[in-house]
C-alpha cells in the first residue's frame, strides 16, 4: 500500500529525516511514537507531500509520488490527513467544511456531497452540528469533524498527526473512539500519538523514531513490554 524507501529530508542544513524505510500494508494501523523533534510530523507530511522530499522514494499503491510527473493533487485526495490543530475552515459551517473539497476537487454534485457529508457526521456522532460554525464546537467535536472532512474524499489511507494532543483529557476518548471504529472498518492508518493505550489496543505495529531515524519497530505487545533499544526504553519509561 505505502512503501517509503531511503527517505531523507533536510530543512536547510538541518537533516530531519535520515534514511527512513517503511512499508505499510493495506488495512494496517501503524502507530508512530518518539520524542518531540524526532521527525514524526515531518515523516507524515512527506507522505502526502506537504513537504518536498530531499532524497528517496515514496510509493502509494505502486505510484511513485516523488516523481515529477505524478499529479500531486490526485495523490492527496487518496491520502487523508488529520492535524493536531484541527484546521477546520472557520468561515464555513460544519457541513460546508465537509462538502467543500468533494465539490470543488472531485466535482461531486452538491446534493450528493451533502448526503455523503451527513452520513459521515452520523458516523462521528455529530449530525446535529451540521449547520453550526466550528467556533462553537469543543475541541473533541472539532477533531471528529476534521476526521469526517478527510473521510469525505474517500481516501485509501489516513494520516493522523497527534490528533488528541490539543484536546482536554475528557475529550480524548471520543476522538480515539472514532479512530478505533475506522481501524475496525479496515482503513489503512498511520497515527502519530502519545496515547499508548490506543497504540496497544488498535496498533498492528509501533514505530519508535528518534533523531530522524526509525530506532525500533515491533508489534505493540513486544515494544511496550520488551523494548530492545536503550533509547526506546528510556522514552517509554517517561511516558508510560
Amino acid at each position, binding site marked *: 500500500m505505502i512503501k517509503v524507501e531511503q527517505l531523507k529530508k533536510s530543512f536547510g542544513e538541518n537533516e530531519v529525516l535520515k534514511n527512513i524505510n517503511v512499508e505499510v500494508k493495506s488495512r494496517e494501523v501503524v502507530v508512530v511514537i518518539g520524542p518531540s523533534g524526532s521527525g514524526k510530523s515531518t515523516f507524515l507530511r512527506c507522505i502526502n507531500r*506537504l513537504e518536498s522530499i530531499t532524497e528517496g522514494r515514496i510509493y502509494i499503491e505502486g505510484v511513485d509520488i516523488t516523481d515529477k510527473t505524478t499529479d500531486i493533487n490526485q495523490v492527496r*485526495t487518496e491520502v487523508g490527513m488529520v*492535524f493536531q*490543530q484541527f484546521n477546520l475552515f472557520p468561515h464555513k459551517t460544519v457541513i460546508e467544511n465537509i462538502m467543500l473539497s468533494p465539490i470543488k476537487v472531485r466535482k461531486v454534485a452538491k446534493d450528493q456531497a451533502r448526503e455523503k457529508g451527513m452520513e459521515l457526521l452520523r458516523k462521528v456522532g455529530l449530525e446535529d452540528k451540521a449547520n453550526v460554525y466550528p467556533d462553537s464546537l469543543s475541541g473533541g467535536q472539532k477533531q471528529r469533524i476534521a476526521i469526517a472532512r*478527510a473521510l469525505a474524499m474517500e481516501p485509501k489511507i489516513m494520516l493522523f498527526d497527534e490528533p488528541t494532543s490539543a484536546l482536554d483529557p475528557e475529550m480524548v476518548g471520543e476522538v480515539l473512539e472514532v479512530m478505533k471504529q475506522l481501524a475496525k472498518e479496515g482503513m489503512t492508518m498511520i497515527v502519530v500519538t502519545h496515547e499508548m493505550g490506543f497504540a496497544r489496543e488498535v496498533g498492528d505495529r509501533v514505530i519508535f523514531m528518534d533523531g530522524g531515524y526509525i530506532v525500533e519497530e515491533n508489534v505493540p505487545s513486544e515494544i511496550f513490554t520488551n523494548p530492545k533499544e536503550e533509547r526506546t526504553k528510556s522514552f517509554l519509561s517517561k511516558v508510560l
Partner: protein
Amino acid sequence: MDFRLDIIVEYAPFLLKGTLLTLGLSISGVLIGTILGLFIGLGKIIRNRIISSPFVCYIAFFRGTPLFVQVLIVHFGVVPLFIHETNGIVAGIIALSLNSAAYVAEIFRSGIQSIDKGQMEASRSLGMTHVQAMKYVILPQAFKRIIPPLGNEFIALLKDSSIVSVVAAPELMYWATAMNTQYGRVWEPYLTASLIYLVLTLVLSFLLNRLERRLATE
C-alpha cells in the same frame, strides 16, 4: 478674533458640492484601489522574484513618494495620453486609485499572511490546488481581517484627496482655497473645511467600528 460666518454661508453650496466630490473621489479611489491592490498584493506574495519584482517596485514607488507629485504626474503625464486632454477629476480618481492600490496591496498581503498556515495545509491535504485553496479558504478569511485596515485606508484617502485640489478638481479643499483667495481670510475656509473632514472621518470610523463588531460576532 472676528469670524465671518457670512462668507461661510455664501460659500456653503460650494463647500457642499466640494464635500460630495471629496467623497466621490475617495470612494472611487478605494474601490478601484481595492481591486488593483488585490492583484498587486497577490503578485507580491509570489515566490518567484522575477514575477514579483514589478509589484514590489510599484508598491515602493507609490508608498515612497508624496501623493502631490503622483497627482501631477498622472494629471499632466498619464491622463492626456488617453483622453487627449487634462481633466482634474479623472486624474484625481486615477492618482488616488493607484496610490491606494499600493497601500491596499500591503493590506491584502499581510491579511493573507496572517491566516494560519494550517488552513492552507488542510486545504492542500484535501486535494485542492493552491489557487483553489486561496479562492475558497484563504481569501474569504483574509477579507474579514482586511476590512478594518481597508476602512482606515478609506479614511486616509478622504483626507489625502485634498491634494487633488492642485490640479483644480473642485473638491472640498479647492473651494476652501477659493474662499481663502477671494477674501484673503484663512480661518473661515480652513477651519470649516477641517470640521467637515473631521465629521466625515468620525462618522466613517463609527460605521467602521460597528461593521467590525458585527463581523466579529458573525
